């Protein structure tokens, strides 16, 4: 059997990706990743032996939401007005627009969108991870998509139309 720590280490690139998809900037993403890995290792006993990635992603989602709720992001919201280092990934104007729009999403909606789109979890898995009804997952997903579409459309000066 692969040891728990080894399996966590193997998951780090995907965990880093999820952290980057949630966090406002690179430093926050790194903090979130580190806190999540530490928590997962400290709580190894509570893991029931199935879907380790989902379990750690749920831990990360909770840490992310708690940080947001505690208002610990206040300083970062200020900082986000200035130039901050974007999360790891390709550069480019469109990505920056997208990241800025993601940063304006409600954190619960953002988490659902990322768990589905980036992490590829099913709706039922997301509901179980977040401990919310399936209907809540669907409404957060719907709101996230509509909000994001409106936000990005508003940011484009020229709207392309086919004749």
């Amino acid at each position: 059997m692969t040891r728990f720590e080894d399996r966590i280490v193997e998951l780090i690139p995907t965990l880093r990706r999820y952290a980057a998809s949630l966090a406002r900037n690179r430093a926050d993403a790194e903090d979130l990743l580190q806190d999540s890995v530490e928590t997962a290792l400290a709580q190894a006993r509570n893991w029931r032996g199935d879907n380790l990635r989902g379990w750690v992603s749920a831990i990360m989602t909770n840490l992310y939401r708690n940080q947001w709720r505690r208002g610990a992001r206040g300083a970062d919201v200020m900082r986000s007005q200035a130039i901050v280092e974007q999360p790891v990934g390709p550069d480019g104007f469109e990505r920056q627009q997208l990241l800025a729009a993601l940063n304006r999403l409600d954190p619960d909606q953002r988490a659902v969108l990322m768990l589905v789109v980036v992490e590829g979890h099913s709706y039922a898995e997301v509901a179980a991870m977040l401990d919310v009804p399936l209907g809540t997952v669907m409404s957060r997903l719907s709101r996230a998509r509509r909000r994001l579409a409106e936000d990005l459309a508003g940011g484009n000066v020229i709207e392309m139309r086919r004749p």
Partner: protein
Amino acid sequence: MDDRLNGVSEDELHAYVDGLLPADRHAAVEAALAADPDLAAVAAAWRAQNDAIRSAFPLEAMREEDRSLAQKARPRLPYALLAASVAGAFALGAATGFGFGRIESEPAQIAAVDRIAKASRANYVVYSGEVRHPVEVKADEKDHLVAWLGKKLGGELRAPDLQAQGFQLVGGRLVTYGDAPGAMLMYQDESGARLTMLTARNENNGQTGFRFDRTGDVNTFYWIDGPFGFAISGAVARERLETVADAIYAQIGG
């Protein structure tokens, strides 16, 4: 929008763009999209959104970041993992021996005394780089700090005075040491160089001489003295760290 769904629920439209739609509903959803250009535009927009989000966070870039962090002098994450996995391995009941897999190729058997060196080095690497929160309790609450940490350890803790060696107390924090508490004190010199001192209860009472470990650019002196094990770690020259270790031993021993 509901009235334009042509027998297809919005949930199904989400499932369609997310590739989560049951196979037996594909035909119905595609027929609805074919019949309703507005609905098809929504589905296309959501699908484009998905593609943009996925390509904004490519896994390969994350792997690249891991590799690049691993090559830096003070990789935060693997060492955080190392620190936590010291606790994790004990929590899992691994009484002896835990390799760190791809992090390190250390032999699996780690002697009790070497455990504290490893834990101390990990603490140093994790916390000395912290700008925002290097310590839980700052030095201006020194009495509270040593009383609190001492209580956690079940013994009297003293914060050695290292001013003669050029180091001021920054503060301290409670850390894990195996499945027990450990006390970490942090010191800093005028140049900003930091040292971390780990004190933890040692299960096999006894005494060892000073031992020295150098891993990467982190030097550690460590020893066991009665019920406690001690370690002092930092990225400072061995000779300087040895004078610090001597001072700690002299102040705490006896």
